[in-house]
């Protein structure tokens, strides 16, 4: 039911590459964490089986993060700006569908980071009087179009909350 009449806009396939690069960076942190734990196992002379399990677990998590999650994330996010509201559907396992009336929006921000700038990927953060919502993994032109579309509609609507 949550997928019924889902929002129209899907992500561009190009963002998968950026997501994978992100996973590689995460993998680096997994490796550092794993190395620290391996040192502790060695230092306290815990059974070698712990070290083997740790390595297997780290590799497994990295593989999921690199090979599976980017595709699932790409498929899971959908959004649509209607004349009076914004609708977002996202979440791989925990699916969330939300409606944000345009008149409630107070601020629209575009966010990026050094890696995302290289791939021209941005995320759009929408703030209301007490909630924050994000549409992640948008190409630069999509993010700009989404922000522009919302700003135009916000101007049309008046509210003081």
């Amino acid at each position, binding site marked *: 039911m949550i997928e019924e009449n889902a929002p129209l806009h899907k992500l561009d396939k190009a963002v998968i590459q950026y997501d994978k690069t992100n996973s590689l960076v995460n993998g680096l942190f997994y490796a550092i964490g794993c190395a620290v734990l391996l040192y502790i196992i060695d230092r306290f002379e815990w059974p070698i089986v712990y070290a083997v399990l740790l390595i297997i677990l780290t590799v497994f998590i990295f593989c999921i993060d690199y090979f599976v999650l980017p595709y699932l994330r790409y498929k899971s996010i959908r959004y*649509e700006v209607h004349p009076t509201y914004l609708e977002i559907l996202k979440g791989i396992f925990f*699916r*969330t*569908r939300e*409606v944000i009336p345009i008149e409630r929006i107070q601020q629209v921000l575009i966010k990026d980071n050094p890696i995302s700038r290289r791939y021209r990927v941005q995320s759009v953060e929408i703030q*209301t*009087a007490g*909630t924050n*919502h994000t549409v992640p993994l948008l190409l630069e032109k999509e993010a700009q179009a989404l922000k522009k579309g919302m700003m135009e509609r916000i101007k049309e609507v008046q509210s*003081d909350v």
Partner: protein
Amino acid sequence: MSKKNRLHKGTLATKAFKRLTNLAFPLLIYSFIGLSDGEFLQTFLITLTIFILLMMIGFVFDLIKYIRTAYYIENNRFILKSGLIIRKEKDIQISRIQSIDTAESLAHRLLKLSKVTIQTPGKNILLDAISLKQLEEITQQLYDLNTAIEVPTNIDISDNVSEETLAKPDTSSTPSEGDLLYQLSITDLIKLTLLNTSAIRSFIVFFFASSFVSNILIDFVFEQSDQILRVPILVLLFIALGIFAMIYLFSAVITIIKQYHFRVFSTDTQLTIKRGLLETNSQTIVLDNVQSLEEKQNWLMKLCGFTFFSLSIATHEQEDEADSNKENDTNGKIVLFPLVKTDQLTSLIESCFPEYHLASAKLVTPKRSIRRFIQFQLLFFIVIATVISKFFWIYAWIPGIILILLTLLFGYLSYKLNGYALSENEVTFQVAKTFSIKRTYLLKERILTMKVNQHPLLKRAALAKVSCFSAQGQLSQENQLKFIDDKDAFELFNWFKPKNGGHDDYESNKS
């Protein structure tokens, strides 16, 4: 530009008084620790030195702040300059001022001062201590510039309004505090304490936390020592009852001090709440700023036909540090009717919030949801109680069983009581807690966002969670109905989704 004014010198005394009350409790505890170690004199002297040092440092800071703080009116703006090291300037547009609220602590009252908050929809200015004469001058000046301001009611400004001002058409009368809508007598305050389960909960926590229970009572019961069982059980019962009575008495005294002479006045545009015995408060709530209404009823209140009613407002900036202990206004939640007869509530709400209908919720939680409310908590309590019983404390299974029973009760109540009601412009959320039931009433135009959550396991059972957010304080208040039928969840979701905002409507409007 009006002349720059300083706060009253008494602000140094009121701040010192506040610091004294804040420091007294931790330092007392510290002294008692020393007392139990048998080094009373030494600990007392250390405590006294720390106390005097802190008070002196605080006084120096307060003095610098006092010297560097000034307020004045310039170009239709009320400006406050302050700051210890970095000078801050805060200004508010006079035409946007909604109200001037006052509060007086014991120190303020002794020195005939007032703590004043000038409120706008965006930000507030707090003047920590000004004399009543200064307050009179400020309100008069601001009132002359903006007739929409609610003047603080501790002083009868109308007596001092000049003939010239009276002659002006828009300022010819001072706005009154409105009609008395609701008040609490001393008897009501005692009833409020008796019906408030927080005293009972404090007792239960005290009972289980005290080593007296763990070390003596349980040993009495389970070791079945005949020698001490006969008399002391009665004595222990007396002690327990005594503690229970003491907690109630203490709660009653606190309630009376805080809520003494609790009154709510109403006008067409705002409500004013006044209360307090030692520290008096006068707080104005602009009706346009009310985001949601909330009714909370514990089982004791329900049995006696009473309920508790509060409202939420949006605030746009952090309360000033000096005002952060304003008990009634934490996170934008304000108690409106601490104790009100259920059958009188509708008429009271009708008179100040005519747009709300307070519809009763229809109960929607399906039977298949019960286990989902409790499964993780049950698992957690069983594991924790078992582990603690096995390794640390043999009687841990007793509180464990109590928590498990409470969780089961919570699951059953959630199934029996959770629900919602929809009308064209309003939604009611009804959610059961273990000891109470909470009903939140929201107007569609006040809702910030609505969302539905589902995961594959819930999807398979055709269940979903629905959350609705409204502004409260600087953040938002979440009202969530868990594990309801997904059809009901989407009924709520589609109700909130603007009807005339879809692409089809837009395209047809354009063409």
